[in-house]
């Protein structure tokens, strides 16, 4: 599905060809991104300068039809020009950057999954739900219907020159929607990564719950590390492997403890030298940690880093696609308002009298519906990603509340988690998916636009159209 969309967006020149390779033929990559705007501008200027091939210049197009068509065309021009300029400005750098960062994140996620033994469950992550396919099918059918309707009507009107009016009527909205589709794709990727992280956090959380019971006194004074290592293999199915891997570890610990006494005598303190051990372990055994650490809380630092990285990735994505959201949402808003207005004030009263007028009003309705669907999906996904990132902080808090064994006698984990949650507070203040700060991309935006649309509609519906319609001979 994503592939289809990418091909489509390459075909109509919204993203460069070969966007993943930095070194490829420069001309070839950007030629499509230049041809389509030129084609569009040629049709747009041609219609507006030479007054041919445009709906407004047909004889049986009355004043209402002309006005609404002009509005549709100029709004489309505004949308398309801003979108294409921002796309040209973005170029390939973003895609390459995004992919490399994503690859980095995926590597760490894989590592963490291996540590947390979530590997076996991976197969289900790839499988998409029914809703996913249904959404795609729905969106595609809506778009195909819109394009089919527009091109058919235009072909009936203009014959073989229909491509020229089509370029100025439906094409800009199609292009804008496809860019939003790219945004949707990137956000869904981010959201997916958040979900995976949450799964890993949840795993730690569950383990903490199980491990709460076998908390014993025996090694509280000697080693915190052992506690966290010992009980898990017992409950895990892969016991033999874990014990195997634990043997060298235990030996290591013993050795270290033997080496410690002189130091401890210097310090006259038994407990607090643990951190030093941790440090050494962290620095030197980092590579070995993968094999020996079969418990998932060893993931915590990695997960915190991951969370941070994914948020940084979303900042970049939002910086690239957020500005394109603004004209799209504006166009969607205007088209929807005028769609409702034309439908109620014109089409209800004089439908069937003039074919062109009907065509224009239906065009408004169709495109308002399509753009609304796309806008809703964008908002929904952004909201989801936000919620997922928030959930991680919640889970971490839950873990902290349970006071699992690995946190006792070791302040490091406690501080780590506290630091993570604090950092998330900072992130929350700093970032949210938004359109250059004008509005946040979540459900509150729907509320604000709907309320604004209502007040505009109340004003607009007061316009008295009957005299105009009467003048055009549509009403008696």
């Amino acid at each position, binding site marked *: 599905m994503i592939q289809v969309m990418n091909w489509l967006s390459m075909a109509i020149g919204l993203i460069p060809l070969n966007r993943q390779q930095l070194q490829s033929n420069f001309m070839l990559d950007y030629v499509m991104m230049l041809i389509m705007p030129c084609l569009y501008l040629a049709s747009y200027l041609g219609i507006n300068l030479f007054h041919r091939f445009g709906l407004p210049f047909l004889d049986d197009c009355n004043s209402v039809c002309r006005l609404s068509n002009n509005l549709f065309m100029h709004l489309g021009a505004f949308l398309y020009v801003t979108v294409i300029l921002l796309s040209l400005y973005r170029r390939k750098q973003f895609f390459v950057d995004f992919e490399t960062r994503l690859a980095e994140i995926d590597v760490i996620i894989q590592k963490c999954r291996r540590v947390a033994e979530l590997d076996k469950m991976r197969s289900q992550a790839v499988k998409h739900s029914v809703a996913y396919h249904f959404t795609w099918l729905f969106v595609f059918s809506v778009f195909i219907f819109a394009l089919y309707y527009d091109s058919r009507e235009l072909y009936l009107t203009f014959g073989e020159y229909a491509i020229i009016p089509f370029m100025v009527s439906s094409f800009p909205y199609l292009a804008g929607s496809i860019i939003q589709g790219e945004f949707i794709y990137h956000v869904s990727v981010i959201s997916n990564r958040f979900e995976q992280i949450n799964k890993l956090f949840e795993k730690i959380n569950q383990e903490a719950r199980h491990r709460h019971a076998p908390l014993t006194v025996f090694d509280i004074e000697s080693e915190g590390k052992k506690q966290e290592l010992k009980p898990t293999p017992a409950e895990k199915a892969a016991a033999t492997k874990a014990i195997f891997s634990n043997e060298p570890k235990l030996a290591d610990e013993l050795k270290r403890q033997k080496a410690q006494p002189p130091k401890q005598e210097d310090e006259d303190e038994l407990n607090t030298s643990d951190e030093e051990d941790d440090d050494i372990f962290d*620095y030197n055994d980092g590579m070995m940690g993968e094999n020996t650490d079969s418990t998932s809380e060893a993931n915590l630092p990695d997960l*915190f*880093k991951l969370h941070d990285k994914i948020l940084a990735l979303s900042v970049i994505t939002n910086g690239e696609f957020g500005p394109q959201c603004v004209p799209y949402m504006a166009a969607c808003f205007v088209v929807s308002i005028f769609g409702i207005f034309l439908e109620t004030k014109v089409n209800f009263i004089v439908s069937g009298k003039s074919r062109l007028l009907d065509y224009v009003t239906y065009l408004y309705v169709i495109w308002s519906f399509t753009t609304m669907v796309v806008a809703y999906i964008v908002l929904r996904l952004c909201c989801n990603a936000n919620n997922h990132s928030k959930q991680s902080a919640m889970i971490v808090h839950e873990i902290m509340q349970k006071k699992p064994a690995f946190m006792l006698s070791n302040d490091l984990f406690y501080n780590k988690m506290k630091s993570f949650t604090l950092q998330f507070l900072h992130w929350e203040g*700093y970032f949210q998916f938004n359109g250059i700060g004008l509005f946040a991309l979540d459900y509150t935006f729907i509320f604000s636009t709907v309320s604004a649309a209502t007040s505009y509609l109340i004003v607009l519906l007061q316009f008295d159209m009957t005299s105009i319609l009467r003048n055009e001979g549509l009403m008696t």
Partner: protein
Amino acid sequence: MSQVTPMVQPLLLQFQQLFFLSKVVGVLPQDLTKFRHKNVLEKSRNGMIYMLGMLALYVGLYNLLIYSFSEEDRTLKATQSTLTFVIGLFLTYIGLIMMATDQVTALFNQGKLGELYERIRVVDERLYREQCLVNNSCIAKRIRIMLVMTIIFELFILLTTYIELVDYTQWLSLLWMVSAIPTFINTLDKIWFAVSLFALKERFEAINATLEDLVTEHEKFQTWLTGDADAPEPHTADSSETQPPQYDSNLEYLYKELGGIDIGSLRGSGGKNNKVAPIAHSLNSFGESIQTPRKPHQPNPNPMMNMAHESELSNATKVEEKLNNLCQVHDEICEIGKAMNGLWSYPILSLMAYGFLIFTAQLYFLYCATRAQSIPSLFRSAKNPFITVIVLVYTSGKCIYLIYLSWKTSLASKRTGISLHKCGVVADDNLLYEIVNHLSLKLLNHSVDFSACGFFTLDMETLYGVSGGITSYLIILIQFNLAAQQAKDAIQSFNSFNDTAGLVGAATEFGNESSTLYDLVTTTMMTPSNY
């Protein structure tokens, strides 16, 4: 950490041209010669008198302008379009009010402004000591660009309007030149605010960059460390590098013990750590030797030599001081931001009100002009769509740039907390975590949010709301205008009808009933005007 702190360049050095210009036109009262020699803003009695004189002059000239052009408005009043007339009357003095607000606030704040820049200079010095250098040179460029833009816009609007739309055969029409003064003075004043805000944003970003530098350096250090752990050859380096953690834990133990005795005095024990730190650290073989010659904005001159990567983050106590200082500087910059916002709060409020009203009014008058209705003489630029576009771009550009900058600054200040936490995560050290958590709480509490007198915050969401407001007001205004026009047309057509009817009535003695008919028709015509 150089032994003699060299003077950092004061920010005001970049403001030379701007100050000279503002001094001449009377935006700022401060002393010119002192600024020239010492780059300080100081109170000046003469400047104050000069500025008051200029203010009085402008007010007089502007009133003269309004008076001399009010002749044309007689027709407007006569041609009944009350809505247009009232809006014009209401907005006549708004430019003057805005200018007077700017100048009077500048007079009141003349002492505080100097203090503000002095505080920024102190912050610069402190930042320099923390090896994070702020580049002021682009500020002068910015000022120049903004000045040039302002002059181009003002001149363009003034001249095109004068040539196109003013009857320049009369010598009194030269007074039209005065109409540009309020906006010009306002823009000069706002350039001061914008540039200072930009400077603050740069300070925040410098802090963030320093923190991020720490992170990347530490990452390099770690890769270097793990790389060495595999290879047996640089054993000496390895052993010496494992020393810092050990030493850290020693200190941490000390630290903990002190903390255990008195939990409340955790910070106090930090002071003790600081005393121990230099001695302990000097044992480290190459720590200081690399540290001293390093320049702030070139992280490591020799990246891939077979030399130890020195990371400050591996040394918690030392970095604590640095982080502490950075946070304090951050706090100070936030305070400066608040102070700056306080100094300019009334001018910004008046600017925003001006922008909102003028934007709406200009569009409305443009609509009126396209309908061939007469508009107030002061807003004659609306007669030409092209000039209107330029005026709108100029006005909205001023407002939006300020809003955008405040938004960006506030974001940059929030970013610091994130960068700080990155340091903690990358070092993964218990002591550092404690420091970071403590400082992060502190950072959460000082946020800088710019507002106009507290009425609304200056961020992009406000812009979104304002743009919505402008459209809805515009629609309402246009509807009223349409309704009034319809009513007027109806009255006119009826009057002509009435005349003929009167003639007919006079002939057929029908006149007494025509007046009742007149009442009936006018009421029926007037009532549906707005439905």
